[in-house]
C-alpha cells in the first residue's frame, strides 16, 4: 500500500529566529482515498481486527507519533 505520510518543505527565511525545521509531514489516512467502500475487501483475522480497530487492512491507518525533533517515528 502507498505511504500514508506526505512531506513538504516549507519556506525558510534567512531571518528566522530559530533553527529551521526544513521538513514537515502530515498524514493522509486511507479514508481519503475510498469514496464508498467496495464489498469483499480482504479482512484481518478476528484477533487482528480487534488489535487494529478495524476489520479491513485497506482502512488501517498506523500512527506512531512524532519524536521531539518533529520527525515521524519509524
Amino acid at each position: 500500500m502507498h505511504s500514508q505520510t506526505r512531506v513538504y518543505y516549507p519556506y525558510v527565511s534567512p531571518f528566522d529566529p530559530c533553527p529551521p525545521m526544513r521538513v514537515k509531514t502530515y498524514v493522509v489516512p486511507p479514508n481519503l482515498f475510498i469514496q464508498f467502500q467496495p464489498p469483499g475487501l480482504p479482512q484481518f483475522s478476528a484477533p487482528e481486527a480487534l488489535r487494529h480497530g478495524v476489520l479491513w487492512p485497506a482502512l488501517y491507518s498506523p500512527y506512531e507519533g512524532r519524536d521531539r525533533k518533529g520527525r515521524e517515528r519509524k
Partner: protein
Amino acid sequence: MWIYEKKLQYPVRVSKCDPRMAKFLIEQYGGADGELAAALRYLNQRYSIPDKVIGLLTDIGTEEFAHLEMIATMVYKLTKDATVEQLEEAGLGAHYANHDRALFYNNAAGVPWTAAYIQAKGDPIADLYEDIAAEEKARATYQWLIDMTDDPDLKDGLKFLREREIVHSLRFREAVELLKEEQERKKFF
C-alpha cells in the same frame, strides 16, 4: 498586505423596506458560518499548511471580506432609515438598545461573534475539511435567507454569494486532492 478597491465585489441593491430581513441577514455577518468567521478562519490557517495551498487560502479569505462588505451593505440599507418603532417591530429592539443602528458582529439571535466559531487544528486535511464544511453551511444559510425574502434585488445579491460558496467548496476539495498526491521519496535532513 492588501490593496483595497473602493467598490463592492457585486452590486448590492435592496428594493423593499424590510428591516426584519436585516435581523436575519446578520447571521452571515457575525454568525458561526458567516463571512467574518470564514475570512478569519482561512487567513489564519495559511501559516501552518503546505506552501502549495497557501495562495488559495489567501485568495478565498480575501474574497470572504469582500462578501462581508456586501452583507454589511445589505444590513445597513435595511436599517439606516428605519424608525425606532420599525426596528422594534422587526425584532431589533434589543439591538437598538445596545447599538443604535450600528452594525455589530452577532448572529441572527443576537449572540456576539466568538473565535470559538473557527478552528485551526494544524493538520492540513482536518483544516481543509473544516473549510469545506464551512462553505456548505454558508451555502445552506444563504438558501434559508433567500427563502425568507421576496425582494428580487436582495435575492440577486444573495444568489451571487451562494454561488461563490459552491465554487469555494470545490476549490478546497481540489486542495485536498493536491495534498493527497504522492510526492518524491521522503528526505530527512
